[in-house]
């Protein structure tokens, strides 16, 4: 087995430290997609969240359409669409058309979602998300297989429970960047056991997302990266861990910073040889597609493009 490398996830945020207008941010995204295609990446991936002050991409399938219109060979994925907030009929009808117009290059990653305000905006109770996922996912899987051409559905997971749901349906996983190697191994065991119990022939290869930054000069780049990484991780941490009513700002930030330090341990950063060595560790676990996020917040263009070009050299080292 060799590893395919995807680029992403892209979330297209006008972050406070560099709040470019979204017209420019999406123009940059389309340029990055062209670069990724020229450099031979397997795929490029878009993220989805709603009602956030920096304009985090809320419509990944439409942004995917724009990328498919600009490119000709690279696959375009959602990582991940928050399925329980949507109408599954809408998602299936959109995906089938976008995939056909894009010559079969769409990959649909879906997951639960977790942020209360997003569910509430669409009049969905967050507590219903598991039940909704149980209902929607089999229907989406069926329609994806029946589509012309069919498109792949990955299930975004950060817990064993979510992996078991995917295992029962025989759908491949898109594992979250926050899980370390031990957690990934345990999660895959739960997945395979659920598939066996359900009598399902589940795939043995899955996708994994990692935060990855290729640089030949860590001392030079780290001071520029750290604020962006902190911003990104603080945002996701805050969504998972809302502020308590009586919690002071200082206490809340301290709580989030503890989470940031834990998550930063999963970051893979260094030169081509180091990054390639780190990524190969996941191959033996069963991940043949690694989606590498090098865009944290809104990095300066030259910094991001240098990292993407470095990552393309890693691609030459690790496989396809």
């Amino acid at each position, binding site marked *: 087995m060799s590893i395919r490398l995807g680029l992403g996830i892209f979330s297209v945020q006008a972050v406070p430290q560099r709040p470019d207008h979204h017209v420019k941010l999406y123009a940059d995204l389309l340029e990055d997609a062209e670069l990724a295609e020229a450099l031979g990446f397997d795929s490029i991936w878009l993220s989805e969240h709603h009602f956030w002050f920096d304009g985090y991409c809320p*419509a990944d399938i*439409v942004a995917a*359409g*724009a990328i498919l219109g600009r490119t000709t060979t690279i696959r375009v994925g959602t990582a991940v669409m928050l399925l329980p907030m949507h109408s599954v009929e809408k998602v*299936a009808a959109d995906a089938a058309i976008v995939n056909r117009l894009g010559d079969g290059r769409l990959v649909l990653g879906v997951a639960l979602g977790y942020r209360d305000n997003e569910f509430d905006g669409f*009049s*969905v109770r967050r507590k219903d998300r598991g039940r909704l996922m149980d209902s929607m996912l089999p229907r989406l899987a069926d329609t994806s297989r029946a589509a012309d051409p069919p498109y792949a559905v990955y299930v975004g997971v950060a817990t064993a429970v979510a992996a078991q749901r995917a295992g029962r349906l025989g759908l491949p996983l898109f594992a979250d960047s926050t899980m370390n190697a031990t957690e990934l191994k345990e999660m895959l065991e739960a997945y395979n056991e659920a598939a066996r119990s359900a009598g399902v022939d589940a795939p043995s290869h899955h996708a994994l997302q990692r935060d990855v930054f290729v640089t030949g000069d860590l001392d030079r780049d780290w001071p520029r990266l750290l604020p962006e990484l902190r911003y990104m991780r603080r945002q996701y941490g805050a969504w998972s861990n809302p502020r308590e009513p009586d919690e002071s700002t200082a206490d809340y930030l301290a709580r989030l910073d503890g989470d940031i330090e834990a998550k930063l341990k999963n970051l893979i950063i260094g030169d081509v040889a180091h990054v390639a060595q780190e990524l190969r560790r996941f191959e033996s676990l069963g991940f043949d597609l690694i989606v590498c996020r090098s865009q944290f917040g809104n990095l300066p263009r030259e910094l991001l493009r240098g990292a993407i070009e470095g990552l393309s050299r890693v691609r030459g080292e690790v496989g396809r």
Partner: protein
Amino acid sequence: MRIGLGPLPLAGASGSQLAAMARAAVAASFDSVWVAESRGEGVGGGLAAAAMLAQVVPIRVGAVLDLGAYHPLYMAEDIAIADITSQGRIEVLLRGGSVEQVQLLVAALSGAHLQFRGPTLRVPAHLEANQPAPERLALNPAPAQPAVPIWVEGALSGHSQDLGVGTAAQWAGGVAAPAPTGRWPGLLLCPGDSQADELLRSAGAEPAYFLVSAVTPEDVVSIGRRLVGPLRMPEFPDWIGAQ
């Protein structure tokens, strides 16, 4: 007068076919090219397809959308991203849906900090299980255009003035093009064999936007040659291009 191509049905279409039609529309001087979803038949993706075509051609791109099929806030988000990726070239025609749904869609696209309380839709919903929810929320990012052109047809047409949207109608022999509402001309969906003089008669003294259907790129070129000149300027000198 303005002239658009379409709507091109997405059912059964390939990306290369749509791109060929869109390029022909540019070559024939159409102002826009439109696609149409049909969710009743399981065909969606109108805005994603529009976003895709906007990367292929430099003219405006329209999408005929089925409004009532899903939450209007999702449609607002999809319109916003299609508009931003196309750098402000998206237009929309809504089929179906309710006045309340159009109100929420238009309010969301305006960039307002929303607190919508309609007969069936509430934003934020403030469902008991979702506390604490904010008092208001906003579509972010908002579209690139200050106001995305939106038209409605059918039962909603009678409300277009109040909703701040344009009115659309299907061509029928001798029918008048819909009257402009606010800044939006009436939109008339016409067959490919329409003649310039009958279209101009249907508009009378008002501006109008004619959306003309075609099946092949050759049709597009032929329709463009027949209609674009006379629609753009009165008393078109039809001898001017004679060989």
